[in-house]
């Protein structure tokens, strides 16, 4: 059998194991090991297995993960999301669908402190959904809005997915973070416009709230100031070259810890829970990346990624059309798989293709994160939808999925704009040259 045939059989086996509910990391390590053993030798495969576990578990570049996750979980348990929402609501609440518009920007701001979509959706959902119920918001709009806006957390830095993408592709994490800022703001605005347009057409969907006084608005700014301080510390430190990404994460976590300690808003239980959550997410991420590394070694010896890129590069088709097909593939894959798993599985295979076709890997990182965002809200996997269902158990799952569609349309429009105008993503990283 040719190496390509073995690789294709292995990928089919891998997907079968995924569908058999074998954890993604386990399956990638198993198939990667078996494939590598078949292509080289059992002793070489055994040796590389232990080395991959040691090298990845003790990787300095991966230590950025626990630090940013710690920062995000502290922000979650200290109620930062609630303060951001109160500020956004005071300024935007009087608009048609004002609570929804405020939700979009509050989620974007929370995403600047936390890189997890599920944490963002849970934190904001707990605060916002009862308020929306009080103002008689349409349940589909309310839940769809929070689930979708919660997904902004993986695009707006710090983003766990962008960190892993940066490690897999050896791209600068600082540049990837910078690349996510403008698309994140653009997407938050698209989400806000979606709510505004829907409520303008049918005011019953989201009645306007009470207009706050300027005194109330200024008083609510505390939550926004602390977000800007944290974001400025992390991104400023990375931009200026003061911090490595791990140091930026630790500095952000220090800020996230100090603010609620001064405000007396973090309990001991909340602190311990944030540590528990951090080890859980860290172990999950490290094991997936290690499994992907073992699998990546097998892919490298099979030479499939290089043959695929040579073949696609030789096709008489515009690279944008090929990119369109790849994004479509990600969109379908994202419906069935967690975005982190999807990215760790596909990036080692597709990176040579991206480079051969002449696309910027930083821009591609932003694009696949955007597509990953679609994956967290689309059925049947749509993790954010299940999180929101947990927060609002009285709203049927179908209603939440129905509420998602206008926001999914906004996401697709945003992705098309980014494909047509890659400069939106590449402008800020360009300033870091």
């Amino acid at each position, binding site marked *: 059998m040719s190496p390509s045939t073995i690789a294709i059989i292995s990928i089919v086996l891998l997907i079968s194991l995924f569908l*058999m509910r074998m954890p993604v990391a386990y399956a990638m390590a198993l198939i990667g090991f078996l494939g590598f053993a078949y292509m080289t030798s059992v002793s070489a495969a055994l040796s590389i*297995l232990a080395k991959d576990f040691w090298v990845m*578990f*003790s990787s300095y570049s991966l230590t950025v993960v*626990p630090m940013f996750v710690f920062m995000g979980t502290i922000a979650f348990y200290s109620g930062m999301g609630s303060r951001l929402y109160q500020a956004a609501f005071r300024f935007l609440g009087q608009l048609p669908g004002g609570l929804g518009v405020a939700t979009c920007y509050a989620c974007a701001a929370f995403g600047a402190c936390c890189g997890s979509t599920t944490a963002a959706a849970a934190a904001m959902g707990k605060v916002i959904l009862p308020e929306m119920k009080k103002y008689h918001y349409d349940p589909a709009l309310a839940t769809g809005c929070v689930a979708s806006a919660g997904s902004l957390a993986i695009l707006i830095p710090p983003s766990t997915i962008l960190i892993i993408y940066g490690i897999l592709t050896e791209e600068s994490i600082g540049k990837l973070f910078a690349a996510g800022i403008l698309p994140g703001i653009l997407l938050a605005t698209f989400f806000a416009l979606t709510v505004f347009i829907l409520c303008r057409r049918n005011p019953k969907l989201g009645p306007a709230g009470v207009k706050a006084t300027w005194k109330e608005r200024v008083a609510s700014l505390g939550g926004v100031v602390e977000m800007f301080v944290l974001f400025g510390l992390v991104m400023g430190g990375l931009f200026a070259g003061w911090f490595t990404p791990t140091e930026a994460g630790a500095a952000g976590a220090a800020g996230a810890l100090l603010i609620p300690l001064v405000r007396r808003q973090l309990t001991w239980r909340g602190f311990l829970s944030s540590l528990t959550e951090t*080890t859980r997410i*860290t172990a999950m991420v*490290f094991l*997936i990346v290690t499994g992907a590394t073992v699998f990546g070694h097998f892919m490298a010896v099979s030479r499939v990624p290089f043959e695929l890129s040579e073949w696609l590069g030789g096709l008489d088709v515009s690279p944008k059309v090929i990119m369109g097909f790849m994004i479509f593939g990600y969109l379908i894959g994202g419906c069935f798989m*967690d975005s982190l798993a999807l990215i760790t599985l596909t990036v080692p295979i597709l990176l040579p293709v991206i480079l051969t076709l002449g696309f910027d890997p930083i821009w591609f990182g932003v694009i696949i994160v955007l597509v990953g965002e679609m994956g967290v809200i689309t059925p049947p996997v749509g993790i954010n939808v299940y999180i929101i269902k947990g927060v609002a158990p009285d709203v049927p799952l179908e209603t939440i999925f129905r509420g998602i569609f206008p926001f999914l349309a906004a996401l697709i429009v945003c992705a098309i704009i980014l494909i047509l105008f890659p400069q939106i993503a590449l402008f800020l990283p360009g300033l870091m040259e």
Partner: protein
Amino acid sequence: MDFLDRIIRFVSKFCDQIAQAGVFAMFLLVVGNIVIRMVWRPFFGTYDYVCFIAAVLVAFALANCAVQRAHTQVELLVARFPQRAQGIIGSITGILSLGIFSLVTWQCIVLANEMRRAGAVSMTGLFPFYPYIYAIAFGVALLCLVILVDVIQSLGKAVKG
């Protein structure tokens, strides 16, 4: 069986608490290094310490992550199957998982032994690598035990339905 399950859960949780202490230690070390290098000079060997803490914390958190069912998996298909089919599929994937992680445990011990004999140390701090590789072997072995309990439970499901 129930006793074994409880023991493994207890040990996994205890190891996870060590991992949590590791996260906080890493956080303090990195922040402390940022502060001290602004006023004096960086801590010696910070890079090595951070890497070693990461290795231990991840290894010690693996098993509890599996107990919490937090390792990403695709729930879509199997959850719709009858209990017996779920048990059979769970047994197969569990045995395969057990196989790969047993190999990882064994090979980590082999690698640690080699590193110990060769006297391999880190570049800056000259700290030996092998204790941390033994820690990884321990963490992965604990993960194997968690998977073993899952396999026994899945086999029970496959037999009883």
